[in-house]
């Protein structure tokens, strides 16, 4: 269930990032179904090749996961520059620790998400006051697309609404909706039970509906 990296378990309590944990969600035992997920991990061979210095394997891994790592960090942090820093740090850790990575029941992609999530939590914790007071940056505008202005505006409001969620609710929603993870994978990445994940998702979605319904023009009604 947990990945071991350099003899260190990459679980949130040891990294100290679970200070952001929603007190209403109790931490649960690992998800049993996730143990079988590592058996058919498509990244396992790549990681082993990377450990031997295979440059092609490095490129393949980056092309496979960089967009999703960057997207997750971008939506969690609301800042494109910080998101790039996080994405780069994730892969630097892969390069550094590939030779010591052991599945231990978790897919490599799940471990990647955990690293990215923890890095984002660290940054969010450091600038929490700023995030509370300020809205995240506007989404990149679509070039020469006046007809897409409304879509860009909607996207920026949705991003702002997501950014305003408590960190773990936000992470749960991003993992399931943006990252395309199954509930088992998302629960493993968050290191919570399925029930806890569903609680985070339900409360996050409820809050999003409240925010977006209150927006001018009622975004939910406009879709």
């Amino acid at each position: 269930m947990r990945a071991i990296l350099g003899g260190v378990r990459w679980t949130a309590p040891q990294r100290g990032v679970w200070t952001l944990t929603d007190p209403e969600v109790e931490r649960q035992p690992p998800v049993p179904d996730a143990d079988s997920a590592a058996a058919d991990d498509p990244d396992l061979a790549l990681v082993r090749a990377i450990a031997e210095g295979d440059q092609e394997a490095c490129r393949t891994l980056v092309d496979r996961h960089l967009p999703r790592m960057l997207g997750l960090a971008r939506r969690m942090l609301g800042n494109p520059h910080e998101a790039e820093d996080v994405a780069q740090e994730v892969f630097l850790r892969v390069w550094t620790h590939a030779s010591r990575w052991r599945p231990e029941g978790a897919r490599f992609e799940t471990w990647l998400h955990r690293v990215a999530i923890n890095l984002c939590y660290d940054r969010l914790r450091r600038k929490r006051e700023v995030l509370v007071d300020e809205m995240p940056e506007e989404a990149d505008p679509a070039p020469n697309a006046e007809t897409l202005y409304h879509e860009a505006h909607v996207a920026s409001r949705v991003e702002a609404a997501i950014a305003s969620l408590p960190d773990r609710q936000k992470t749960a929603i991003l993992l399931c909706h943006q990252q395309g993870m199954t509930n088992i994978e998302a629960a493993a990445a968050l290191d919570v039970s399925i029930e806890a994940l569903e609680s985070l998702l339900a409360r996050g979605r409820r809050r999003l509906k409240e925010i977006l319904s209150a927006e001018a023009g009622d975004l939910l009604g406009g879709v």
Partner: protein
Amino acid sequence: MAEREDRMNAERFARILEAYGADPRRWPAAERAACEAFAAADPQAGAALGAERALDELLDALPPVAPSLALRTRILSATPRATPPLARPAKPERARGSLQGLLGGFGLGGGLGETLALPRLPASALSLFAASAAFGLYLGMAGPAWVTGVSESAAYETAKVDAVVLAFGARGFEDGGDFGEGSVQ
């Protein structure tokens, strides 16, 4: 999960919609079929699905984030093989060797450097030191009088005395140190 399939009901169905939204692809795999069957059979399910679908569409409409080529390049420039191995610079060793070589040139032997635990100096400093020493030696032996403080004739006389000492050892001193021109004969 099979147990859950058996007890799929309105409450569980609503819980799944609240958490995962209206898209069956996001529903738990073990309960998906039961959920879809329940939705098809329950007349109230349509309204519940519609309410969640609006939020799903907003979330799905978020544009993808594309990494820049510069970011990809930065990441790949730090891959394991691209990182040069940490190698000890050989410059300090060469500098020490130069000092030992210098000492060897003065007949002091290569082992002296080790014995004296000579400091590791840069090669440029050693070169400057050697040049200064050679120039000073030249001035002292063959430089003009204003540098050495010895007239040319006095230097000649001193050279003669040196030659006598070399030829006759300390005996000249036993003779009272009279190293006049005739005594050389």
